[in-house]
């Protein structure tokens, strides 16, 4: 990879330089410098946690604007199943799909269709017995990036397939070319995305080439227009487009992909902290009796994506209700592809972002110093230096990105006065002066 694309960005004008995002980043990829947050590109996994926690809305996700559609003669929408949970009183998915066509898309292919094909493919791969158990789902691009950054030992457990979106894109493109005669350049294929990680995966797929996805439009951006279009739809206008069932749509929520494998020995964890805990357990070989591990960085699964509109639990309840009107599954692998079509074509390698140095001896020298510096720091993890913790500051110092004097308590510790500091940072030096007086 020459240039690292990230969909998660900073709007420097809005950033107040507070410490909310640095504390929540799962890969410690953010620092505050000169009163602005700074994202360390090599470490960012585009999970979107910082977008979620920033009180000033200074973090945002890059996605395509509607104008982008005008570049193409034939436009296809690939809606994520999470989209279906955004609407009140929806009983028929075709309202949403027809709405997308009314909005200006020439065709709509559901990502849940790709999901059903992938469920079918995974079941076959399990039967073939070639997978290293427990198999970890590779559907969440943020999880894949988290593993290559923090848990490289587990790379071999990832399900070596493309994602539902890729299969949907391939089907949509082939169909369009056959039916219309347009060339690839004339056809625009747009994912309606619940999260920034999936937008990143389009520009920067780690394990295979792009399957022909032109861009992604955020659910939150399309929602207002789509709702208006759907409101105006007459019943007789609604087309029969929906071609996926409970299994495909189930992928929107945590546990859906695992349920689609029709196996009992699985685990489904969601929310970045929980995902990290499970990966830790897995690394300690404590989950070896499981067949499958589904991990979603967002709480609740994709339906909790940071680019969705509706509260995730409300959206989940709506998806639950939609299932009532759906068949179990409408798509099988053999109807579209063979296993060879959806495998990885590039080797997935560990990210060296966390390593101190390439050379072990150099790394050890840096580590010795890091530990020494860490011991000298106050251990408050206050974040005022701009790093998420004292350990992270020590790490930055040995890498040459920060200095010990960046710690506000550094001067105090070498013997200065601390009256000027806010209460939590003052040290009680003269016992006889403070403390006792208050008792009387």
């Amino acid at each position, binding site marked *: 990879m020459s240039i690292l694309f990230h969909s998660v960005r900073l709007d420097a004008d809005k950033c107040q330089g507070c410490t909310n995002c640095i504390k929540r980043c799962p890969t410690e990829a953010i620092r505050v410098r000169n009163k602005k947050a700074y994202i360390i590109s090599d470490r960012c996994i585009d999970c979107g946690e910082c977008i979620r926690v920033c009180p000033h809305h200074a973090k945002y996700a890059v996605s395509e604007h509607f104008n982008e559609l005008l570049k193409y003669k034939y436009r296809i929408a690939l809606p994520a199943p999470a989209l279906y949970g955004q609407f009140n009183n929806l009983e028929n998915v075709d309202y949403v799909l027809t709405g997308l066509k009314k909005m200006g898309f020439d065709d709509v292919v559901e990502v849940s269709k790709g999901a059903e094909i992938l469920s079918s493919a995974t079941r076959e791969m399990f039967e073939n017995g070639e997978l290293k158990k427990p198999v970890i789902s590779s559907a969440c691009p943020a999880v894949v990036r988290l593993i290559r950054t*923090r848990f*490289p*030992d587990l790379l071999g457990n990832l399900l070596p397939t493309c994602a539902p979106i890729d299969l949907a894109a391939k089907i949509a493109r082939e169909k369009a070319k056959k039916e219309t005669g347009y060339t690839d350049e004339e056809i625009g294929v747009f994912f309606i995305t619940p999260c920034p990680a999936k937008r990143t995966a389009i520009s920067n797929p780690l394990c295979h080439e792009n399957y022909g996805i032109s861009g992604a439009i955020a659910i939150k951006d399309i929602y207002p227009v789509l709702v208006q279009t759907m409101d105006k739809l007459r019943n007789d206008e609604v087309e029969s487009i929906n071609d996926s069932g409970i299994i495909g749509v189930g992928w929107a929520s945590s546990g859906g992909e695992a349920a689609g494998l029709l196996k009992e020995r699985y685990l489904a964890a969601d929310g970045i902290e929980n995902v990290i805990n499970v990966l*830790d357990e897995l*690394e*300690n*070989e404590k989950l070896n009796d499981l067949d499958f591990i589904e991990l979603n960085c967002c709480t609740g699964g994709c339906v909790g994506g940071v680019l969705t509109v509706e509260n995730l639990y409300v959206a989940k309840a709506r998806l639950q209700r939609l299932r009532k009107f759906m068949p179990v599954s409408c798509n099988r692998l053999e109807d579209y592809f063979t296993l060879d079509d959806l495998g990885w074509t590039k080797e997935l390698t*560990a990210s*060296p972002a*966390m*390593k*101190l*140095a*390439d050379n*072990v*001896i150099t*790394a*050890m*020298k840096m*580590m*010795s110093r890091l*530990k020494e510096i860490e011991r000298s720091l106050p251990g408050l993890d206050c974040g005022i230096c701009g790093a998420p913790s004292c350990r992270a500051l020590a*790490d930055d110092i040995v890498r040459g990105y920060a200095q010990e004097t960046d710690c506000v308590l550094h001067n105090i510790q070498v013997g200065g006065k601390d009256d000027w500091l806010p209460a939590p940072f003052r040290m009680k030096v003269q016992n006889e002066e403070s403390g006792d007086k208050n008792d009387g």
Partner: protein
Amino acid sequence: MEETIKLHYVVPGDDFTRAGAASGDVKHTLKQLGVSPAVIRNVSIAMYEGEINMVIHAGGGEIDVEISEKDIKMTLADKGPGIANVELAMKEGYSTAPDNIRTLGFGAGMGLPNIKKYTDSFRIETQVGVGTTLFLSVNIA
């Protein structure tokens, strides 16, 4: 001069929520050093089992870790009850863990056998009523 990194941990007794903190920190440190994943796995599994043993049987203890270019040495010392029959304790499936521990999913009798399995050198010093010390090392290939 040979570069070594020395780490010291105190493992509190009877607190399962904190068991694993020391091995977790060592794992993090080794990852940053760029040590191979297989070595990291062996070290963290062996050390985790040792930590759990300290919590279950010995009311806690202390762990010293020494990382060099050649190997990772771990010394796990406790002042617990000691092991009366080491040969038996080394058998897979043998455990003296009480029932309340077993209901937590521990006490399967795999602790010491696993520690031996995942380390390149394993030595145990134990005396009933005095305590147990494990001397472990994992080679960096």
